[in-house]
């Protein structure tokens, strides 16, 4: 390719990639035994978890109100209280006020399935 064409061609390709990136994220519909991390990631954006937590792989998730969730799969305890297992994590996400009353993290209206999906996402963070 001649050098004078290279710049514009690269620019057009980059624009095409940007448009492609705007396509819908794919949804897995197959029922799985555990939570679905992909659905969990979408829920974490929708529920604005990133306003208070740094969460790798989640848009705009650089809040520093609560602890960063970086490397969460390696974390030993949840809220310094519960052993870090997927069921415990789902329980914490669902009802943090029942576990540590008066803490800043609200009980949000989620189904147990949604909490399990969010837990599944966090357990992928190594």
């Amino acid at each position, binding site marked *: 390719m001649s050098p*004078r*064409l290279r*710049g*514009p*061609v690269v*620019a*057009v390709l980059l*624009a*095409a990639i*940007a*448009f492609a*990136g*705007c*396509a*819908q*994220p794919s949804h897995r519909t197959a029922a799985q035994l555990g939570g679905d991390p992909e659905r969990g990631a*979408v*829920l974490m*954006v*929708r*529920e*604005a978890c990133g*306003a*208070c937590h740094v969460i790798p792989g989640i*848009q*705009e998730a650089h*809040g*520093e*109100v609560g602890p960063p969730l970086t490397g969460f799969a390696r974390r030993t305890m949840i809220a310094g209280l519960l052993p870090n297992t997927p069921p415990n994590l789902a329980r914490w996400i669902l009802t943090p*006020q029942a576990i540590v009353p*008066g*803490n*800043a*993290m*609200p*009980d*949000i*209206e989620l189904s147990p399935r949604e909490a399990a999906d969010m837990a599944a996402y966090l357990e992928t963070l190594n």
Partner: protein
Amino acid sequence: MKRWLGLLLRLGLPWAAGLASVGVVGLGVVLTGAFNTTASTPHAAPIAWVTHLTMTNAVKRNATQLSNPPAFTPADVLDGARTYDANCGVCHGGPGVARAPWVGGMTPSPPFLLDASRNWTSKELFWIVRYGVRMTGMPAWDQTLSEHDVWNLVAFLKALPNMSAADYARATAAQPAPAGSGLARTP
């Protein structure tokens, strides 16, 4: 002269063609409805990046034209807490307090504001609250809250990082201030 024109054409034409093709694709997206405008899934990463950065920079640029905020008193914080509870908490929640359940269906999702004052200056917070943010669902409050009310909201947001869930519950427990109840602040 002729050489310059030749050089301009040689270098400029490919760029013009490239930009035109991007424009054609963009127009195609606009005219065919290929862009998904539903709120049920989050923004794609490039859209989130462009829109959020545009908003952040516009707020930072415009807020500089405001005069300095008044000195905030504990009474201002308390008044701001009640105004916040009556008008803002439904979408933004509070320490230990969830947003309304339907708010998770908004795109972009309204943030919790516990550390908003760590990321924005008082003037920037005033600018966002008073004039709103297009295409996010954040209304301009200049029709329903006085400047005094909005500064008190800013006073509250500044105090928020030091409030526990119990502090917040106490501050908002009193009679909520209805929108537009503020007195005009004398400069």
